[in-house]
């Protein structure tokens, strides 16, 4: 996931959590505030009533009424007040919630109860306010607050998105540049403009590292070039000297066979050096990939080149390539070497009278070329090793240097070709090249 997306998601999530907290915690809070206000109001009413009693005397409230009590509530039963004469008892001064029946309707009230004495007579005053109205208010308030918070969350999330986009633009530039690099050699150091120190530091560090890597690559290239020169020259001297000896009529005949053996050994050395050079040059991307290579034609060329070897071992070759398919950017010579080595192996490890099938077809938009032989096969435990350099398996001869399949794999990787091997001992082996999608 992108950093920018993560940060936006995080900020949205944290805001939603705060919103939920509000939704949960707000009702009790508002309720407490509302109750507090109600109580305050009840106390004010109480003061007012007491002042009225002081001014007009208790009689104006209780006289004339039955059993010396007074009751009044407003039309919508939101509030009530009652004063009644009671038997002497402990004084009471409380504010509580209680249910009262008013005109056959039970309503919950916040009730202030107060006992007071006038002329040695005890009275109980109760002032109530309906809680239903309070609840109503709370609900309305809550609704508005939720709408408001939702709006705030949405606005801030979009603001965060826009801001982070601007903020992370340098980082995205750096990432995009890194994505474009196929090989360290193609990297070009670049400055970025940003007021964020971290990005500038990151960019500078990347530039620095890449420069070091590039320098290492150049060094390696030079090293390979030098080593190849240093190794090839003595080999060249030995080879020419041996050839001169071979063609010298004075060389005794029993020496000739020894010279031929020498020649073979030298040839092996020469091939190892050349194979290693080829592998490291491919790995260093020192070969051009600028040719369109028709894989069908390539397979035909390899088959034609190798036909005589198959015939020499009485092996039949079947070429089953479908329509032409072209790899847009490749190196023909390298691909030829790759396929040649695989088909050559298929001949070398085949049984006399066996067969080889080279099959090419389109599979899920990708071209696949498979070389199947009816040879000795490769045991499962050795399959993972076959591409390792110098790993030699059941080689029927002693001349193989074990780099053939390493070359195959290196060339395949260089062209982004997926190489797979499937083998059943005693039945045969299949090498498949899956070419990249166009």
């Amino acid at each position, binding site marked *: 996931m992108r950093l920018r997306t993560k940060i936006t998601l995080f900020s949205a999530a944290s805001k939603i959590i705060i919103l939920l907290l509000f939704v949960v915690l707000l009702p009790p809070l508002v309720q407490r505030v509302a109750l507090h206000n109600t109580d305050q109001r009840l106390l004010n009413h109480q003061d007012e009533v007491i002042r009225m009693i002081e001014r007009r005397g208790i009689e104006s409230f209780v006289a004339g009424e039955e059993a010396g009590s007074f009751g009044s509530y407003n039309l919508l039963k939101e509030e009530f007040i009652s004063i009644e004469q009671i038997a002497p008892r402990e004084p009471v001064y409380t504010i509580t919630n209680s249910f009262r029946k008013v005109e056959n309707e039970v309503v919950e009230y916040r009730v202030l109860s107060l006992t007071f004495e006038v002329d040695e007579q005890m009275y109980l005053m109760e002032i109530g306010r309906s809680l239903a109205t309070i609840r109503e208010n709370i609900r309305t308030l809550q609704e508005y607050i939720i709408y408001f918070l939702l709006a705030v969350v949405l606005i801030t999330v979009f603001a965060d998105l826009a801001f982070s986009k601007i903020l992370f633009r340098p980082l995205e530039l750096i990432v995009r540049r890194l994505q474009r690099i196929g090989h360290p050699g193609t990297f070009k150091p670049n400055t970025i403009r940003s007021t964020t120190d971290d990005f500038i530091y990151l960019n500078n560090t990347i530039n620095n590292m890449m420069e070091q890597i590039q320098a290492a690559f150049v060094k390696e290239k030079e090293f390979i*070039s030098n080593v*190849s*020169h240093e190794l*090839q*020259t003595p*080999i*060249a*001297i*030995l*080879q*020419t*000297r041996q*050839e*001169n000896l*071979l*063609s010298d009529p004075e060389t005794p005949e029993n020496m*000739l*066979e020894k*010279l*031929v053996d020498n*020649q*073979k050994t030298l*040839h*092996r050395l*020469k*091939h190892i050096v*050349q*194979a290693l*050079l*080829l592998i490291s040059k491919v790995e260093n991307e*020192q*070969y*051009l990939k600028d040719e369109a290579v028709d894989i069908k034609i390539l397979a035909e060329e390899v088959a034609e*080149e190798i036909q*005589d*070897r198959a*015939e*020499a071992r009485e092996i039949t070759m079947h070429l089953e390539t479908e329509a032409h398919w072209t790899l847009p950017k490749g190196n023909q010579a390298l691909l*030829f*070497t790759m396929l*040649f*080595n695989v088909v*050559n*192996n298929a001949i*070398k490890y085949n049984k006399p009278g066996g067969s080889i099938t080279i099959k090419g077809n389109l599979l899920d938009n990708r071209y696949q070329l498979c070389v199947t032989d009816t040879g000795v096969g490769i045991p499962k435990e050795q399959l993972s090793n076959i591409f390792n350099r110098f790993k030699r398996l059941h*080689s029927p*001869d002693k*001349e*193989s*240097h*074990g*780099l*053939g*399949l390493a*070359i195959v794999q290196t060339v395949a990787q260089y062209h982004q070709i997926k190489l797979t091997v499937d083998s059943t001992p005693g039945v045969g082996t299949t090498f498949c090249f899956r070419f990249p999608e166009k």
Partner: protein
Amino acid sequence: MHVLIVEDEVSLANELTHFLKKEHYTCDWAVTGREASEKIAVNRYDFILLDLGLPDYDGLDLLRETKELDHEPAVIILTARGAVEDRVNGLGMGADDYLPKPFSLLELQARMQAIIRRKYNVKSSVMPFHELEIDTSARRVSHKGQEISLTKKEFDLLQYLLLHKNRILTRLQLTEHIWGNILEDDYDSNYIDVHIKNLRKKLSGYLPGDWLETVRGVGYRLTA
């Protein structure tokens, strides 16, 4: 034929000289680029075998100098660097051929022969061999006007044997000539034997029985 060998490696220059003298070339040897430059200016060479990796000189500069001479010697680049760019550069600048080190002396001679034919415009590309006519440019072998069909590799083999007639060619030398440009895992001498067998079979009616001698444990020799 006058050949200048430009090579800083003494042993290699010695072997080259030794081989070319036996092939009746006259040889000069220059160790450094400057020495080579002087020799080119004074002498008239037919061939320059040029090592690109000289200590004091860029071999390609030397190549440029030869192009300014009024008689143009044929230049074969011999280099251990073998990089693609070198090859492209060298051939682009007018070198006649290019042999990466290590190379076979026989291959070198074959290339020199081919250049001579090209340069001196040898009219007839037909090499007679007993009663056979081997046309190297049309790549045809015929007997009294009747064509004998050979595969590409069989023809290459016959031509190479003929070029180096009366000399033992080892199986490895023949293999290198036929498959030299392919870097493969191993060397298998059996394949050459199969081609030789086929070649013998195809030409047996037209040539004396001993035209191609098998030197046991070593290789083959074409006698003419």
